[in-house]
């Protein structure tokens, strides 16, 4: 493996920052494109995947999980191979264009009501392209920046790429909240949800313009000039035992644990606050946005620190802290919104009941209960019960929706708890690009690092909310109908613990590291 110091002694700090900006902006926009689909999945489901149609429901699940996460490793293989064959610049330009076009097209697809099953089929196809493009993007951007950076500051410079996933999430939340506020909730659900997808086209156009002006990575150009480019990157990466063992080590000793810590802190926390604790939609997003903004600089802090004390210490430190503190953190989060343990202000309790009769003669009874508590928390419970005119038919199940508004103090405590979780993310994720780049030689780097990254993050990490929610639902029994709210945490804790032990045993420390030649 080549050290890049010699190649970049003459590269100015300004030139390096231009490389980082050009790479980061594109990657940030790709994350934005990827997240807006996830954030609007419930609205997309109503527009494209009608609940009464089992085929559509199957396609919806595929679009959310399979296309969103499972396809990413395939994108890593397809574009990683291309990147090692034709170069980093044109490959991650291609992934950017594919992502932008597919996102823009999602915003234009007519709904199920207009074109029937063609609508979910089109959405699934476009989501597949999104997953493929994302699978190819990250490895290219990380490799490109790392191959420009001096080796003794690689952790710091690649940490800029690491901020893009979190900032892309922040941008998606910001655009969605702004659009929703501007057009109103009803208009947003009807058509306004398309705006963030269409906005993507403008963002991508700017990013493509910036990237077109970039030069190829100097290390890749050098090996190309010397005729040392791999003829078959897939074979060299995965059929060569010397390299395959490093791919497996990267996956099981670092990225697997990093993936679950990331998705627990940034996504499962949101699911838990909103669904399990019942905290109101906008309050949940505001506290997430604040936590993300405050914590983002720590990606750079831990990336830079990893240049001095080693990647392993920081990554495994973050993983260990997460494993040990997840349960107390989530217990505190739950208690902040648990109205059963709070003192109610009886005189401020209001109950409103309405009844409505529809054209078929069915009656809909709605009971709205509003409560306030001494600590400043407020609560609304809406219960809906339908009584059918035709008594021979089975009565539909009553529905109830609980919404909690946290007091100002509890809001900031909740934000702090999310901040701590994302701080763990910055520890495990900040140095990982530099770590992965250093594991593999230049000629097969793009392919070799992309696959473990996307298995660790797309599959182990990406499925965290899905599996944790499933564990929570499975814990609901007739003796305990509310279930165990913390059972979902066992998934990231166990995966994180296994990864921590493997990393501790098998990953070399900084003092063991040496420079290698290709």
């Amino acid at each position, binding site marked *: *493996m080549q050290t890049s110091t010699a190649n970049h002694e003459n590269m100015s700090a300004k030139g390096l920052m231009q490389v980082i900006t050009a790479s980061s902006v594109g990657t940030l926009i790709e994350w934005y494109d990827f997240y807006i689909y996830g954030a609007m999945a419930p609205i997309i489901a109503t527009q494209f995947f009608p609940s009464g149609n089992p085929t559509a429901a199957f396609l919806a699940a595929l679009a959310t999980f*399979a296309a969103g996460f499972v396809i990413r490793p395939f994108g890593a293989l397809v574009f990683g191979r291309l990147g090692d064959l034709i170069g980093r610049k044109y490959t991650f330009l291609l992934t950017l264009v594919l992502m932008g076009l597919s996102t823009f097209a999602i915003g234009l697809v007519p709904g199920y009501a207009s074109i029937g099953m063609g609508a979910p089929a089109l959405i699934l196809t476009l989501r597949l392209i999104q997953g493929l493009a994302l699978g190819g993007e990250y490895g290219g951007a990380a490799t490109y920046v790392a191959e420009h950076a001096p*080796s003794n500051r690689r952790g710091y410079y690649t940490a800029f790429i690491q901020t893009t996933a979190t900032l892309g999430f922040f941008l998606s939340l910001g655009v969605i909240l702004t659009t929703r506020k501007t057009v109103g909730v009803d208009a947003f659900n009807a058509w306004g949800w398309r705006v963030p997808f269409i906005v993507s086209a403008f963002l991508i156009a700017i990013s493509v313009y910036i990237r077109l002006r970039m030069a190829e990575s100097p290390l890749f150009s050098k090996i190309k000039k010397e005729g040392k480019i791999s003829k078959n990157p897939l074979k060299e990466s995965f059929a060569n035992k010397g390299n395959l*063992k490093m791919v*497996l080590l990267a996956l099981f000793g670092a990225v697997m644990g990093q993936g679950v810590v990331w998705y627990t802190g940034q996504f499962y926390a949101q699911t838990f606050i909103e669904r399990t604790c019942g905290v109101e939609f906008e309050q949940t997003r505001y506290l997430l946005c604040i936590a993300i903004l405050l914590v983002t600089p720590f990606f750079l802090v831990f990336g830079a620190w990893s240049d001095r004390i080693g990647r392993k210490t920081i990554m495994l430190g973050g993983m260990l802290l997460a494993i040990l503190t997840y349960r107390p953190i989530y217990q505190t989060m739950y208690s902040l919104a648990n109205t059963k343990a709070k003192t109610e202000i009886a005189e401020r309790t209001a109950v409103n009941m309405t009844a409505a009769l529809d054209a078929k003669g069915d009656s809909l009874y709605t009971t709205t209960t509003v409560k306030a508590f001494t600590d400043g928390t407020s609560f609304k419970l809406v219960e809906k019960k339908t009584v059918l005119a035709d008594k021979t038919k089975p009565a539909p199940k009553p529905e109830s929706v609980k919404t909690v508004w946290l007091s100002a103090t509890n809001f900031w405590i909740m934000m702090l708890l999310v901040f701590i979780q994302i701080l763990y993310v910055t520890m495990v994720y900040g140095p990982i690009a530099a770590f992965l780049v250093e594991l593999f030689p230049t000629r097969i780097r793009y392919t070799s690092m992309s696959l473990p990254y996307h298995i660790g993050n797309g*599959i182990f990490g990406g*499925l965290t909310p899905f599996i944790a929610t499933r564990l929570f639902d499975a814990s609901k029994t007739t003796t305990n109908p509310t279930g165990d709210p913390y059972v979902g945490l066992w998934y990231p804790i166990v995966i994180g613990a296994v990864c921590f032990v493997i990393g501790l*045993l098998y*990953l070399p420390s900084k003092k063991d590291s*040496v420079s290698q030649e290709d």
Partner: protein
Amino acid sequence: MDSLKRISGFLWIALGLAVVYLMMQQAGVEIAAAVKNNKAVLDTQMFWYIIIPIFTPIMLGLCLFGWYAWKGEYDHVVIEEG
């Protein structure tokens, strides 16, 4: 340290195989129960039809990792770090 790395290799092989076995067993139990009670059949099937094909090859990868560890492939791992 090297002997601990090698001996632990057995643990990773056993863990990989155990996870595959437990996934298959749990899928069988849950799908059978869902069909019997006619409750959430599609949801249960979909969950396991997604999880098993994804995690089985990854767990076989963990077994391969354990095999390499047992054979001493990770005794002297060195990487270039800045």
